[in-house]
């Protein structure tokens, strides 16, 4: 017994030593996380209950920022509706497009790697550069898109100047970058055991049945992942809208979110409040509202996922 105890003590010394070294080596991350992530997060929660302009010490205002946001700020309403409009249309559309294209790219034909690379390429173009290109594509008189509409006899659209068309323009533009999601779907597709298809064929299943009874159900984990990430991404969209909003050609200087604020997205408005108006307390409150809203929506999606996401190996 005594020997065992001694052994334990020895072990624990070694374990502790190892632990110390482990902590030492991971300390850059731990310090970085505590100082640059955790502390700012907690501080911003505190600031969200204050009026704070960086220079003067924050003044406690209780829930005023939150009340102003929900009850008094009509730009907040605009920012929320614009962001929801985008999320509700873009996220499902992106899934449909990316799944469809990855189904096509999952065929075994010659030169498939090239096609895959071509469809993937747009997603690695930096957002700013891509937006610059799209500003040209959306041009009223000289744009590729209106040229195409003209060819099939449709009227031209003022994509970046008409408040009703700026968000559809943004959706079209961001759909272009579906390559990232596509790669994940492709991986998912290749993970589906060939034996299932073979068994289905033996039973006389056609292509549609294979698609709807095997492929899509077994792709639901990937779709679920993309849905969650897509919602989070759509809520946080910034750089693309910020540039697109600045590209309206009404002949005047900068605006708050483009024509009639139709491109005033949540994070754009947050940015303006923080770095143009120096309302750090208010923008901190906005950040927390966004965080909580994202969390609630994600939780709802996760809860609902139990009904439609299938994991191989029987688990749901």
């Amino acid at each position, binding site marked *: 017994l005594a020997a065992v105890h001694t052994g334990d003590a020895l072990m624990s010394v070694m374990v502790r030593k190892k632990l110390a070294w482990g902590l030492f080596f991971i300390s850059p991350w731990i310090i970085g996380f505590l100082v640059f992530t955790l502390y700012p997060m907690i501080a911003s929660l505190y600031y969200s209950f204050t*009026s704070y*302009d*960086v*220079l*003067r010490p924050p*003044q406690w205002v209780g829930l005023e920022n939150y009340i102003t946001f929900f009850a008094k700020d009509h*730009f907040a309403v605009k920012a929320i509706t614009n962001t929801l409009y985008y999320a509700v249309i873009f996220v499902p559309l992106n899934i449909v497009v990316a799944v469809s294209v990855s189904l096509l790219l999952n065929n075994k034909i010659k030169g498939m790697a090239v096609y895959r690379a071509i469809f993937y390429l747009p997603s690695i173009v930096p957002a700013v550069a891509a937006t610059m290109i799209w500003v040209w594509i959306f*041009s*009223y*008189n*000289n744009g590729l898109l209106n040229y195409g509409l003209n060819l099939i006899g449709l009227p031209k659209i*003022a994509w970046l*100047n008409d408040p009703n068309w700026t968000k559809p323009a943004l959706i079209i533009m961001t759909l272009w970058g579906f390559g990232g999601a596509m790669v994940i779907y492709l991986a998912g597709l290749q993970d589906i055991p060939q034996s299932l298809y073979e068994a289905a064929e033996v039973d006389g299943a056609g292509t549609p049945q294979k698609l709807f009874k095997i492929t899509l159900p077994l792709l639901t984990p990937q779709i679920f992942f993309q849905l969650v990430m897509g919602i989070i991404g759509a809520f946080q969209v910034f750089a693309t809208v910020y540039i697109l909003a600045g590209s309206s*050609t*009404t*002949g*005047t*200087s*900068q*605006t*708050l979110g483009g*024509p*009639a*604020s139709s491109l005033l997205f949540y994070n754009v408005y947050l940015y*303006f409040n923080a*770095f*143009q*108006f*120096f*309302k750090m307390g208010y923008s901190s409150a906005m950040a927390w509202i966004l965080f909580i809203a994202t969390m609630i929506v994600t939780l709802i999606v996760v809860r609902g996922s139990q009904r439609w996401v299938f994991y191989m190996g029987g688990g749901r």
Partner: protein
Amino acid sequence: MSRKLSRRRFLKLGLGSLGAAGLAACAPKTVIVEKEKVVTSAPEVVKETIVVEKEVQVTKIVEKEVEKEVEVTKIVEKEVEKIVAATPVAPPDIAPLEAPALTPPPDKVELVMWDAWGREVRWNREPIQEAADAWNRANPDVTVEYLPGLTELDAKLLTAVAAGDPPNCVIHGPTTELAYRGALTKLNDYLDLGGHDFVDMIPGCWESMTVKGDVYSIAWNTNNGAVFYNTDLFKEAGLDPDQPPTTINELDEYADALTKQDDAGNLTQIGFVPWFNIAGIFGTWASAFGAKLWDEENGKVQFDDPKSIEALEWHVGYAEKLGWDAINAFNDSLAGQDAFGAGKLAMLLTGPWMLSGYRSDYPDINWNTAPLPAYPGGPGRGTWLGGRWVIMPKGIADPDWTWEFVKFFGSKQVQLLYGVWTTNFVPWDEENRNEWFLADKQMMGFLDALPECWPIPKIPTSNHAFFTALRPMQDEARQGLRTPEEAMVEATRIAQEEVDRFLGSL
């Protein structure tokens, strides 16, 4: 203002020159001449290559293509565009800067100066660096380090002030908000010491340095607006290019005469649009109509001043006359070209930075400038007073030495060097009447009206007031979504709420 800079850079970024092909192209060409200038100030010899714009007269006979008729007529150069032809721009052979050599301190002092404008923008950086170098040569124990290209300047500055380690001085845009927020050192006591050039300034410039009577900044180069007008389009429309419009009514008449539509109703040429470029109710038009948008004493926003509403009504008149959508389609059809530069906009209210912009990027158009046409019974021909200001943030190290440097950096000799180099004005009327500016006839539209200009409204939360209130409401009125009065009343309400909240928190 970085907005102006980016516009200018945008122009420079390869939009190229455009042929106004159907029009007479017989004016003198502007060419860029590189000249080597040797600055011989002791102790070392500094070689600088500077770019000088020089008008070269075209002495040969040129062809004139008359619109439609394609009739080639031979005319002599001197008969065309006497204004432009008589513009020999001298190279800025300014005497090298000489900074005062002060009694050195016991310990070495190191000062830092920030500048929002880009590191890559040579025309801005080089004259400023030259000033810093001149100071450092004379005062090796009190050195100044110049740091250009600080983007997101306000965020960095406020953070630095809050952290207790601000730069000694900053070249900054409008400074009202910073002054109200307590980010700036008050300069009254330093000014009282005398021995500086900051007297007899243009009244508007002095006004722009103060908040509630206290001085918080030094006007460091300034600009205003003037109407650029295309003399070829004037002639084509039967208007006298020597008689630009002098009143708002004349401006309207000229604008109508200079506007063209094609058979499909698209605007192919526009005479004038009041809100093009950077002009708007906030900076120019409300004040030009005689409105006072900000009551500093009582802290009241007055966007709904009857004269401001009248100015906006006048804007709406243009939106209705030309069509909001048609104007946007016109802009869009330019595909990034500058409307005035492309010869499709006859008159444009903008700033002096476009003087060199149009000369270098659009040499094929012929133009001149005129002061803002006056509103009958209004305050005159003044526009906004832009430019930049030198500030000393609160809590800086070595404030007295910083002031000594600011005294030199803001002095007439340094500002004039920068002004001539970059086509910006200085805050003294007399110094603006210098040989270089007077030789430039196209600059007169600016210079003549400069003493009548005023700073933009000094609202403590002006960014908020502009972006969330005035800017969107102006557009809603122009689009016919609200009446001008409704728009301005609403803009006042939104802006006032934030002003009250802000002033209440002080």
